[in-house]
């Protein structure tokens, strides 16, 4: 069972208590943006085999959205952090690099 710690209420919650919201840090292209950018924002996903930064919601708990960095092959969790962030915080990047030395934050999609 996947267990993530909600960064707001501090509860280590089972996956049954959470809902996954997909890839994190997407740029929300809207009116005025190009068709390509809008299409990319709505549909195209990185879907990586390996490190994935994604959104989760503590549905059966405090109800808040947060971010998690997780490996999609081993299910290792590198940390969770508040949704009000534009990129993974440094301590999480360091934790990721210990396992995936080649990984770099490529910015928002």
């Amino acid at each position, binding site marked *: *069972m996947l267990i993530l710690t909600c960064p707001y209420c501090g509860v280590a919650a089972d*996956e049954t208590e959470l809902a*996954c919201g997909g890839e994190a840090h997407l740029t929300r292209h809207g009116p005025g943006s190009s068709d390509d950018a809008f299409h990319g924002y709505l*549909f195209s996903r990185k*879907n990586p085999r390996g490190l994935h930064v994604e959104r989760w919601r503590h549905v059966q708990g405090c109800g808040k959205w947060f971010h998690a960095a997780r490996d999609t092959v*081993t*299910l290792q969790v590198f940390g969770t952090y508040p949704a009000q962030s534009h990129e993974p915080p440094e301590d999480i990047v360091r934790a990721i690099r210990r396992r995936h030395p080649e990984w770099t934050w490529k910015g928002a999609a």
Partner: protein
Amino acid sequence: MKRYSAFAIAREALRNHTGWERAWRAAEPRKQYDVIIVGAGGHGLATAYYLGKNFGITNVAILEKGWLGGGNTGRNTTIIRSNYLQDPSAAIYEKARSLYETLSQDLNYNVMFSPRGVIMLAQTQHEVRGYLRTAEANALQGVKTRFISPKRVKDLVPIINLDGPRYPVLGGLWQERGGTARHDAVAWGYARACSDMGMDIIQKCEVTGIRQKDGKVMGVDTSRGPIDCRKLGIVVAGHSGVLAEMAGFRLPIESVALQALVSEPIKPCMDVVVMANTVHGYMSQSDKGEMVIGGGADGYNNYTQRGSFHHIEETVRALVETFPMISRLKMLRQWGGIVDMTGDRSPILSRTPLEGCFINCGWGTGGFKAIPGSGWGMAELMARGHSPLTDAFSLDRFREGRFIDESVAAGVAH
């Protein structure tokens, strides 16, 4: 290739079974092919087979990073049906189902197609209305289905409990010519026929890069060296995103684990396939007597080929309500496969932004039933540039808003 027949069995019986040939050759990769198919699962092999059979293209290599048919082709619950709601889906799934009817004769390989009938239970008023609508749509599409009463459901499935504690059975969508087939045999049969046409099936050969020049595909880099090709077909289900990244584009696909489990073998007790979509479980009995059970997909991206524990509990709970007699069955095995889910729960069979590169993916939780139709359409798409079976499933349908919304038709994993 020596044909399999009753005569061949008699002949081999007389000489101690020493004359059986290998079903397919273990090929070494050559430098260049007209077409490379990445992925030797059912869909990849079927694509290669129909390229050869329908279009005479036989200078083909099929590359597989693991072993043949070891992905979702060998991990599904073998259900075959075509009772979809939308016209493009009904067309391709019904093409597949009708090809399954004669596939054993076509391939000279027994795929054990068993048109035993498939019932999708209606357990809410919403489902009753949905399936009545599907039955009407299927009548217009030429797919033979019928909405049946709870009494008829009980006649077909004596072990069912119609008055479940949560969701009583209010009827069902019945497809008489749906059923099951032996999943491994489908892959093996196509592989044998492809090899017989002179195609190279290369196992343990992982694609590590896609070589391109001026926006056109030139070949692939593999764990066994570079191989050139004119056309490339990517048919890798759960790993489509990984290959797409090598080719330089992104897909509207997320990969998740879907799991299934199978019980100890018991005496024959159910000779149809039953799907209970509201409570989330489906079950059939294999020829060996095992109850084959499929359940829900994980709610988050992963490549674990394992699945979450709580989904097993959910599925088994639902099935014990529906079939109380299985409550003391022991489960033998549980496994998972990586399914490629699109937003509209319909597949993608399409050209890609890279010229000469085609993709067949997004079959999600319901690809096995579609293998022959998918291969038929994909082969035509790769040979001619378009196909009436696949045109609606192009990659640009997302950009253009032409979704083929099948989550409505099935409601859940299917």
